[in-house]
């Protein structure tokens, strides 16, 4: 007896053994590495070299740590570091939580309608420069919200409206970054929710898991591998963002990138190595944070125990 029409295709999960380093795949990575490595690594290396005092343009030819000493002794550096770190953590944390919440909230609609899905991604391509300017005129003291407050009779003069931009709490900066990053995280989460998560949740439900249990034990763990790298990117971006603090932040203390730029374009060239040192420090902070974060996430995932 031959079985009818459809032959059951055996699709085993594709798990090939790890390939030896000699495999040609590495060669294929070369073009990308050629672009990224020289340019990017060069940028970093140059910053390092120049930060160590090798700056022929100004006649510095020795290798020393003066720039770093000067930087670390600069009070503004520490305040800017604190500010940028605070902004980055706040944005990363809030965008992850809100992004996942948003994804869970609109799951059903996302599945049903493609056109509606497009609306959620609307501000994704909009440059941060525009977002920052938009926030100025939305949240500023003479911005739209303030005017709504006036129309509602809550305030009389523009100065009565709380300072949401150019403020010490960097509220405007955080708002702009959240405006862009919450949908970003949401869409990444929806990528998982709309595909893989459904079947797992069905199985879990049939095994007796309530909706809250499913969320905690199935859905969220499934989201972590996709959302974690995304939140690292969000953190790094928020930390290194230049134009947003430039347009929405106080002038003192500036965010770290703004400070770096100021040092770099300082007429006094002897300050340049400090700018380089700052560039190096910023890069190290971001990288270390990213690595630690990802290791932490991996460890948390592994240790999910009853």
């Amino acid at each position, binding site marked *: 007896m031959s079985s009818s029409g459809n032959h059951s295709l055996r699709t085993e999960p594709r798990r090939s053994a*790890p*390939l030896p*380093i000699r495999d040609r795949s590495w*060669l*294929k990575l*070369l*073009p*990308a590495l050629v*672009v*990224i490595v020289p*340019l*990017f690594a*060069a*940028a970093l290396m*140059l*910053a390092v070299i120049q930060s160590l005092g090798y700056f022929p343009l100004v006649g510095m030819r020795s290798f020393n740590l003066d720039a770093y000493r000067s930087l670390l002794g600069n009070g503004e550096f520490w305040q800017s570091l604190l500010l940028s770190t605070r902004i980055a953590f706040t944005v990363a944390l809030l965008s992850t939580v809100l992004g996942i919440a948003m994804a869970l*909230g*609109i799951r059903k*609609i996302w599945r049903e309608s*493609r056109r509606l899905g*497009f609306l*959620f*991604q*609307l501000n*994704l*391509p909009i*440059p941060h*420069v*525009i*977002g920052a*300017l*938009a*926030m100025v005129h*939305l949240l500023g003291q003479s911005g*739209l919200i*303030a*005017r709504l407050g*006036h129309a509602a009779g809550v305030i009389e003069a523009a100065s009565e409206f709380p300072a949401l931009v150019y403020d010490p709490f960097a509220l405007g900066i955080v708002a702009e970054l959240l405006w862009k990053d919450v*949908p970003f995280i949401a*869409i*990444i989460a929806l*990528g998982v929710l709309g595909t893989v998560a459904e079947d797992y949740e069905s199985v879990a439900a049939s095994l007796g898991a309530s909706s809250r249990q499913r969320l905690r034990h199935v859905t969220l763990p499934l989201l972590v*591998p*996709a959302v974690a*790298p995304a939140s*690292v990117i969000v953190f790094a971006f928020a*930390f*290194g963002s*230049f*134009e947003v603090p430039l347009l929405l932040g106080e002038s003192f203390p500036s965010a770290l*990138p703004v400070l*770096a730029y100021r040092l*770099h374009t300082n007429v006094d060239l002897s300050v340049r190595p400090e700018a380089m040192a*700052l*560039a190096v420090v*910023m*890069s190290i902070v*971001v*990288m270390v944070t*990213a690595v630690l974060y990802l290791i932490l996430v991996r460890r948390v995932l592994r240790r999910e125990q009853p």
Partner: protein
Amino acid sequence: MGSRIAFVLIVVAILFPLVPLVIHSFARGYVFPQLLPAEWSTRAWRIVLATDGGTWNALRWSVVVAVAVTALSLLVALPAGRALGLRAFRGKRVLEFLVLTPLLVPAVAVAIGLDITFIRLGLSGTFWGVVLVHLIPATPYAVLVLAGVFANYDADLEAQARTLGASPLNVFRHVTMPAIKPGLIIAGFFAFIVSWSQYVLTLQIGGGKVLTLPVLLVSTASGGDVAITGALTIVSALPVVVLLGLASRHVVRAGLGTTGT
């Protein structure tokens, strides 16, 4: 039902921040506490869209640079994404992270590091200099998206085509390309957006000569004429939003393809 309410609220939250600038662009003397402008005017738009103004020049710069960045980054990202996504290999996760690093490091740091050298190399203030630096943040996005595409790709199809006698070029054109086309469009879209949005890299390496829209926008904003700023904002935002519409028609559920985590 709850889903619908959430949906409406979210869409409003996404669109709302852009409203003030739009209103400003069509208004005259639109100061606090006016809610709706007392006086509407197309002055700002006439100035911004003027053929002898700086807008068209900036638009051209932005487009040309972004197109070049997109083309180059895709060229480079295709083999890289394939290598990264197709098979599991030792150290893959490390490589993924390395590919991500140019995205993580602040653009300012890159700009500062390369500045003097680019001046020395004569790349500062040139089209190619700006394109090169834009490639640094743009390529990783393209690589990651394509790696995600290749993670779901069955290379056996190509092997089959080759046993049927197809040349490598034909295999690429008729087997590989159609399968990865949606991913390619998304990757190109991301690369374009990254380049289009760049500010500090263009500011520093462009040296005042490469005047893309973001650079023009910031200097216009510091000028204080909000109406003109608003109009210019819309001009800067519209092209990429339109591109989003086009790209999402090809692939609906876009999002950074995770490389089979």
